[in-house]
């Protein structure tokens, strides 16, 4: 069984630009979670998508958004990038309550 995949592995952007990160869940998983792992801030919940709908979001500004497609893959968009958005962004998928994580996308904002 293939695991959760994320692309790209690394992404370098400049301040003010937009970043798009992608996640493909494990086959059969309908929920996708996004987390941010920033230096000094630990792992924080960003967004939860289930059956194509945004179900919950963490304490992040609206410039963090995303969507889930009919095939349950998901996109995370970060607009108006700021330096502090530099982090590892992890995606997880689940069918019940156990979350399986992808390898992450490392976003660097210069």
């Amino acid at each position, binding site marked *: 069984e293939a695991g959760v995949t994320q692309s790209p592995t690394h992404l370098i952007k400049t301040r003010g630009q937009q970043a798009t990160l992608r996640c493909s869940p494990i086959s059969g998983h309908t929920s996708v979670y996004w987390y941010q792992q920033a230096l000094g801030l630990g792992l924080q*919940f960003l967004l939860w998508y289930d059956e194509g709908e945004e179900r919950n979001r963490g304490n992040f500004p609206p410039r963090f958004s995303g969507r889930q497609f009919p095939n349950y893959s998901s996109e995370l968009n970060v607009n108006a990038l700021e330096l502090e958005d530099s982090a590892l962004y992890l995606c997880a998928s689940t069918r019940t*309550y156990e979350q399986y994580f992808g390898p992450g996308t490392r976003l660097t904002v210069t």
Partner: protein
Amino acid sequence: AQSVTQLDSHVSVSEGTPVLLRCNYSSSYSPSLFWYVQHPNKGLQLLLKYTSAATLVKGINGFEAEFKKSETSFHLTKPSAHMSDAAEYFCVVSDRAGNTDKLIFGTGTRLQVFP
């Protein structure tokens, strides 16, 4: 609100000696608790989970954890450390308030294993 506190940011052990990574939780109801491991430049891997069944939970790679309600603890142990165990370990509680299953992570414990 749910939360977890990892009591040590760094733990160093010699190869072959026991490992103890400490975690305390706070929960207004019966929690689901997890330990995840993160190797450098890798994603998170589930080591073990507690979901109100047996209080002693066995995981992968020889790790186990005991849920102690009276102490609100969920410490991770391994009888004999291996060099490959060097990684960051996260104690995690599942927050089911508001019909969400978001995970709340502790701040992590970096385990170093010396030869």
